[in-house]
């Protein structure tokens, strides 16, 4: 294909990948915005979503719904995966983060790390060490878009990711609970003095953030065709880089960061051997954290506190 089509193809891929990273990054940024803690377990929540997705999808496939009720099937798969992870997210918050809300940062980080290890190994023990295949539901045809190819699954994922982000934006800016979340993130004490129940607000954040991660997990499963208990790790790193790059705590920042990270990854993969892909990811992360910890859309003083 000629150069312009090639570039367009890369952009499409970057956009696609970036949307997924953005969804995961949103989960990080929301949680960080409200309790100022990196949810190390977020990668595992993402993976859990993928697992529940494959379980539900396999079940629905066996009863033939994939052919007969395609849209409904997808709806159920995503819905259940997100609901499950929302429940799991609340549980994780309650067990690992809430008791340490007033403790030192180090304690909370270690607890988060422990939770991450616990969950990923729990999934390994329950779902097995090897890849779990996702049923093919989208077919292999793709749409031709000015010379670039977008597969059906890509279209679906991009559209769904967009809808979820719009829904999130609506929730955060137009609903009472969403505004309570923003208020709590900005000034917790004042929020309490206005009657906002902090526990409840944090709980809701831990439902929505991880649920978005779960949706991303199902998307990854659908697109790449498989899910593994440890796939959360590398996605976590990338999504974290995206969240920081966009400005931790900023929702539009997470989206922007996701797209940029997706772009970097696609651009890099086009020119360099894939073995070094992960090294690039980590290097980008370190560079972002070193040179621009406040991110592109974040507040500048908040992040240089030691």
């Amino acid at each position, binding site marked *: 294909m000629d150069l312009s089509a090639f570039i367009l193809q890369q952009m499409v891929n970057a956009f696609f990948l970036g949307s997924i990273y953005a969804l995961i990054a949103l989960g990080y940024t929301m949680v960080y915005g409200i309790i100022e803690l990196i949810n190390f377990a977020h990668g595992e929540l993402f993976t859990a979503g993928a697992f529940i997705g494959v379980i539900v999808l396999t079940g629905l496939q066996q009863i033939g719904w994939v052919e007969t009720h395609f849209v409904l099937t997808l709806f159920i798969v995503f819905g259940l995966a997100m609901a499950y992870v929302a429940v799991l997210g609340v549980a994780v918050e309650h067990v690992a983060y809430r008791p*340490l809300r007033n403790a030192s*940062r180090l304690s909370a*980080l270690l*607890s988060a*790390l422990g939770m991450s290890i616990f969950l990923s*190994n729990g999934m390994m023990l*329950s779902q097995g060490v090897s890849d779990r295949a996702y049923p093919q539901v989208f077919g292999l045809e793709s749409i031709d878009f000015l010379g670039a190819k977008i597969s059906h699954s890509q279209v679906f994922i991009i559209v769904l990711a967009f809808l979820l982000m719009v829904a999130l934006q609506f929730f955060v800016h137009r609903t009472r609970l969403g505004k309570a979340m923003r208020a709590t993130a900005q000034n917790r004490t004042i929020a309490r003095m206005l009657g906002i129940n902090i526990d409840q607000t944090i709980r809701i954040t831990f439902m929505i953030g991880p649920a978005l991660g779960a949706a991303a997990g199902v998307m990854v499963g659908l697109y790449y065709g498989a899910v593994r208990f440890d796939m959360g790790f590398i996605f976590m790193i990338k999504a974290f880089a995206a969240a920081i790059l966009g400005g931790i705590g900023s929702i539009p920042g997470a989206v922007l960061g996701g797209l940029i990270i997706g772009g970097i990854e696609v651009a890099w993969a086009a020119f360099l051997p894939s073995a070094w892909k992960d090294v690039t990811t980590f290097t980008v992360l370190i560079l972002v954290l070193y040179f621009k910890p406040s991110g592109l859309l974040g507040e500048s003083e908040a*992040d240089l*506190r030691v």
Partner: protein
Amino acid sequence: MLGQEIKKLVVYTIFLTIIILPMLGFTGGAEFQAKRAFVVLGVGVALLVLNLIVKVIRSHRPLPEHDQPSITERIADRLHQIPKIFTIGPLLLAAVIFPLVANNYMIDVGITCLIYVCLGLGLNIVVGLCGLLDLGYIAFYAVGAYSYSLLNLTYGFSFWAALPIGVVLGMICGCIIGYPTLKMRGDYLAIVTLGFGEIIRLVLNNWDDLTAGPNGLFGMKRPPLYYPAFEEGGLEMVTYYLTSLPGLFYFILVIVILTTIGVNRLDKSRIGRAWIAIREDEVAAELSGVPTTWIKLLAYAMGAGFASIAGAFFAAKLSYVNPNFFLFMESCIVLCIVVLGGIGSIPGIIIAGFILIAVPEVFRELEGFRMLAFGAIMTTMMIIRPEGLIPASRRKRELHHRRDEAERGSK
């Protein structure tokens, strides 16, 4: 009160059910594996009920006075009063006798325990004394191991010649990894160190020309000892390679003893106090004249140095290194040792190292649950006993106090 607790129990049970049943009930096909799922659920609910019972019992006991030290603290104080000879002496004696009475398998486990203890003590400098959450610590271990391997295989360096080079390389890496994190807050620092750790591992894995990549390097010579002996011409130095397990055990035992003494010295030195000052309140430390930059880099470097020594020994003992020995999971294991033992606590870390490495060996069948348990241990320790099994000092009581005060304040 009881009614509320029971309500909570019901809610928790519902949560557990929702979480456990799908994930443990469905693997492979779409049939529900009832037995496994319900067994785990049952265990979970049993734990919750146990927790409830404990809570109820506790609530009926009178509250202790604020400043009354707990039982473990009183025991620890008593132990401190006994002259060191009587506590450490028997332990050392046991360690010396151990290889003579144990079988090879047990000695091997013992060696592994000691290696991890050495790593734990090194990580303790960074995390425990200085408060820097280094998640990439295992990379320094890898540097030590690979330096020895490459120097020995390519250039024929002996262990003793390669060791200092490995340590220096490790310390340089420590400074390189530490430098960007100097101005970073805890969370970012953790992620950056994690990133560096992974980068080093990935480089070792992918740079086939240098490190033979995933195949690893093998054939390194064991650590040698030299002793004079009478040969034909007169007095000569004979090289004796430690290939026997008891020999290697004593070797690492000596290393651990030296490390312990070293870390203990550092702890009590001015540098150690500077590290602790930084851990408690970096801004205050900076204001009172502590050169935080150098001191932090020093912490990284020293921690890395100890890890390199352990790594070199590991490579020499096993005669084989492979990037998969240095996964992020290993960093987590060492971290778990430090957390369980007690951040900043030397005796705690030694004991925790043995517990966490030896116990899984005993219960070999439960191998899969090892990391699961480690994760649970880390989280649980932070919640119920952040000062670890054997707290570093009386100041650790303040950890509880601080939290209780804050809890009362924020209701």
